[in-house]
């Protein structure tokens, strides 16, 4: 440690230090632990956002973690939350780790035959973090449920919600919709509101009173001030009876929408609810608009028709053994038959279609339904590549360490280990996949 180092050199040294790596990794470890515990009461999506995708971590719900560990059986500490300020979130930590690893693990590291495995592994992990970032920012994933005979070229996001405004057009004309992302209205709880405008719209849209899980209730008293057309939004718990968080798919968000005519200033109020049977219709003059609160819709470059779907069970049980769907891919008038089954997705034009669920359709007239998960991920295969590289890197490094302490020839040992590993993996892939 030279005492006279310049400031950039000192910054470089800090950013590339083992100390920063240790601290960042430890924090990630703690976040992973807490994020796992909080899933019990907040659900996977919420705790993932809070701990792993956040820039800053805003608080830790110690009470929830305590209960997740069943410690309340010994001592119930009640609801304790630890508010935090300017504590980096998971996203920031990953970014720091990326910088730290690039500087420390690739640039600053002493390059010698001894460290070759380490350098390779660091490179592979950087690649993996990059894959994660690309997937986080650019991947689309969602599901599509089709009954036999049905066709669709859209799928719905699992967790992203939107408000859509669709002007009603004459039959046969191209339909378009304006889309408002949920990041723009999720914060609008009671008393907060935001007005959304668009030059083509004859009205402004004010969204307010957003609830993550709610149910419209009939206003039997007729006196509620927040009632619209005889209904009001009743907020519901996001926990089930056992105190466990409901899965995000079962949450039905709702909000109040106020449409203000740009010309007359006249206001119309409506309730938007995720599980509503139909959109809210707004009429301005002779033009009608449909407003919905729903999961985000993505378009596929092709359409899928479900021809047949079947389920196999283990004999004598109700346990599923296999779901299979025969589908037809329709693109530009061309038809192509495909089979999607468990563990064997169909990949096409950058999209992967996975068999996810099956429903015999007994409750709806016996037409079976098939649920597909659809993913478009530019970094789809990156993890596999980086996994192979990191495996080889670590194998070289640790075998050489072992060889040195055993006084074997380290190069031969490392080469043998790599050959055995890659060979074994290759054979398994060839024989079993």
């Amino acid at each position, binding site marked *: 440690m030279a005492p006279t180092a310049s400031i950039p050199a000192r910054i470089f040294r800090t950013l590339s*230090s*083992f*100390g920063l*790596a*240790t601290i960042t*990794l*430890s924090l*990630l*470890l703690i976040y*992973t*632990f807490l*994020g*796992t515990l909080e*899933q*019990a009461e907040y659900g*996977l999506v919420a*705790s*993932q956002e809070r701990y*792993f995708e956040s820039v800053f971590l805003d608080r830790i719900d110690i009470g929830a973690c305590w209960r997740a*560990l*069943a410690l309340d059986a010994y001592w119930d500490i009640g609801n304790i939350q630890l508010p935090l300020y300017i504590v980096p979130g998971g996203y920031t930590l990953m970014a720091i780790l990326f910088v730290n690893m690039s500087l420390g693990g690739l640039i600053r590291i002493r390059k010698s035959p001894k460290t070759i495995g380490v350098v390779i592994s660091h490179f592979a992990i950087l690649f*993996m973090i990059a894959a*994660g970032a690309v997937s986080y920012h650019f991947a689309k*994933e969602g599901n599509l449920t089709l009954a036999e005979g049905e066709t669709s070229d859209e799928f719905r996001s699992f967790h992203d919600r939107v408000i859509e405004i669709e002007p009603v057009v004459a039959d046969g004309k191209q339909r378009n919709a304006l889309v408002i992302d949920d990041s723009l209205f999720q914060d609008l709880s009671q008393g907060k509101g935001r007005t959304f405008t668009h030059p083509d719209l004859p009205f402004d849209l004010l969204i307010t009173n957003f609830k993550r899980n709610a149910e419209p209730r009939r206003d039997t008293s007729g006196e509620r001030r927040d009632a619209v057309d005889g209904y009001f939004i009743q907020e519901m718990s996001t926990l089930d009876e*056992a105190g466990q*968080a409901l899965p995000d798919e079962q949450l039905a968000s709702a909000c109040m929408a106020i449409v203000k005519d740009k010309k007359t200033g006249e206001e119309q109020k409506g309730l938007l609810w995720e599980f509503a049977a139909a959109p809210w219709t707004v009429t301005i003059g002779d033009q009608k608009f449909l407003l919905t609160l729903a999961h985000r819709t993505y378009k596929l470059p092709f359409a899928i028709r479900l021809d047949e779907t079947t389920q196999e069970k*283990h*004999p*004598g*049980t*109700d*346990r599923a053994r*296999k779901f299979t769907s025969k589908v037809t891919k329709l693109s530009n008038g061309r038809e192509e038959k495909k089979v999607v089954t*468990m*563990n064997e*997705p169909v990949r096409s034009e950058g999209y*992967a279609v*996975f068999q996810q669920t099956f429903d015999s359709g007994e409750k709806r007239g016996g037409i079976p339904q098939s649920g597909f*998960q*659809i*993913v478009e*991920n530019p970094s*789809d295969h990156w*993890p*596999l590549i*980086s*996994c192979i590289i*990191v*495996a080889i890197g*670590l*194998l070289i*490094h*640790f075998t050489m*360490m*072992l060889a040195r*302490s055993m006084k074997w020839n380290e190069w031969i040992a490392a080469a043998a280990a790599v050959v055995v590993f890659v060979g074994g993996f290759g054979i*398994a*892939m060839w024989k*079993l*996949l």
Partner: protein
Amino acid sequence: MKTFRWIFALLTFASVAPAEDARLPSLDLLRDPEVVDTFAAIPVQEIGRIKPLENIANYRLLRLRARRSLWLTDNGEMDGAPLTDPTTQEGITKEGGKPVKLSGTEWLLMTWFRPDLSKTVPLFKVDNSAAIEELGLESHGKKRDQYTFNEIEPARTTLMEKMAEYREMPAKERSPEQRMIVQLAVNYLDYEMMLAHFDFIRSPVGEDPQDLPEGVTQPVRLSKDLTKFATAITSGGPPMSLPWFRYFGQAVFGAMMSGNAEQQLRIFPPTDPNTEIWDGPGTVLFQTIRGESEPTPEQLEWLAAYEDIYLALPDADQFKAAAKGFLEEVQTAAAARDEGSRVGLELSALRADYFFWAQWVFLVGFVFVALSWVSPTSIFGKVSKGTAWLFLLSATGLAITGVIIRCLIMQRPPITTLYETILFIGASCALLGLIAEWITKRGLGLLIAAIAGGGCMFLAIQFEPSEAADTMQLLQAVLITNFWLSTHVPMINLGYAACMVAALISMIYFVRRLFGALTTNSDEARFITRAAYGFIGFGLFLSLVGTVLGGIWANYSWGRFWGWDPKENGALMIVLMCLVILHARLGGYIREVGLHCCNLVLGCIVIFSWFGVNQLGVGLHAYGFTDGTWPKIYAYWGSQGALLAYGIYLSIRDRQARSKKGSVDSGSEATA
């Protein structure tokens, strides 16, 4: 569980004593090895898989009694007074007046053919005598004890009522007594059905039935007259008004042997290869009287063959011949379907009981390891060490054989359930320890093999009664892929094993420090540290690659690489902890004691992600819910916390000593 409810509803109305049995065989006949082996080998289709009858008998006994064998004594244990045979009025003893011990299959045969005796055997495990008192029965005084069928029977109605009531309560709100009562009620009804298994031929319509269907005469053989009964039941008036119907219904449920559709006794392989589901005595009767389908001639032949086993009694030779004939028929029919070929292998594995023996051989090995410490350099020490090698090697061999045979039986890679992870990790830890010993020859590896191998075998054996279900289960649809099951899963579990070994080494390190057998930076301490470091490296490699492979599996099979699922997070935490240890050590933040302290934390994390995350009750991987796992995890964490506190004390002391000496720690550690 829904299945039970309605059958229970009917059973609560109908519990009738069957006619006196004129064909009671002697217990000795049922314990005749020839008879036992024949019945044990009968292939049965249960929960979607073909297995030997012995498997079913063992797990049924395990569920009722939490043991896999039963002594015919007044307390069910070896030290009790022998029971008296209610028929002969003689004490049940072997030569020399010793009490008799029954295996699972022997117990099942006794239940089927000697219900009179079976009702007097202490069978139902009750962990909480308050439950017995709540039923209005007299408890044995001890908190935990076993009760006979006859002891419970007077409270049958109360038991059913209370069960119906408690079942409606959410599981979380039930008190231990209430849980016990529900469990006892389920077990009792199950056993009632098992006792009535042969009632369909023994006494299908009661002793003196009125209004039997046209053309049916006593003694009734359902293989001949089933359709006549079915017509009488399905046509005309309500079946409950038929005077013999309650006997008949009870016999049918007995023939099924379980209220759970998946666990009914299915032992008749159909000839039609397109029918996947086997028939059984109960299922044939049941579907016929429900008017679902006429019994086929094939089904009636099977039923007749099964009846013949009972009708051959009490003559020993005829009984043996009938049972063997039936077994051969089932085996031939199964083989014609290309099924049941591994039943024999499974039976031999059940009897070999590899993990039970491995546990004891590990223990003996441990004793010799301990003996070798007495004077390591003497002849005695060397001989002890050699013997320890021998025992540990055989124990590891037994454990590995057991794991491999399970793979062969199920035709799939070694790990699919929590139970199997324990077996696999135990066998791997032992093997890793032995390999380490072979390389280093310092005795540490042997100790690890003995502790980890023996500990995991013990854990596995303890784990079985808590689930009390067949440990070879079918897989969920998404998991059926041999490639990933044979790469990702073993790898991640080997990673657990390596990290557990590292933690174990650190525990050994601290315990030896505690006894003053080790000092910082001594040669032995450095060796231990190097070994721990090596295992962390190995563990990091396996957990990291294994975890990422899991992500890749998920990505290629259902379209998401990483979902922050608790089990995934657990694996990630292990990887991160290994990385923290390696980087902290390279940066010089931790030295010898610090490294061992961190290893203890690593061990706690492994235990959390191995057993704890399943208890959080969320996520895809929550497969092993077992009551009372948390206290055990806390006990482990607590013990590690104590060692950790000691480690921190040592580290502070070392630091003070160093600063006194003013000497800087040599750089040798950092390059190790």
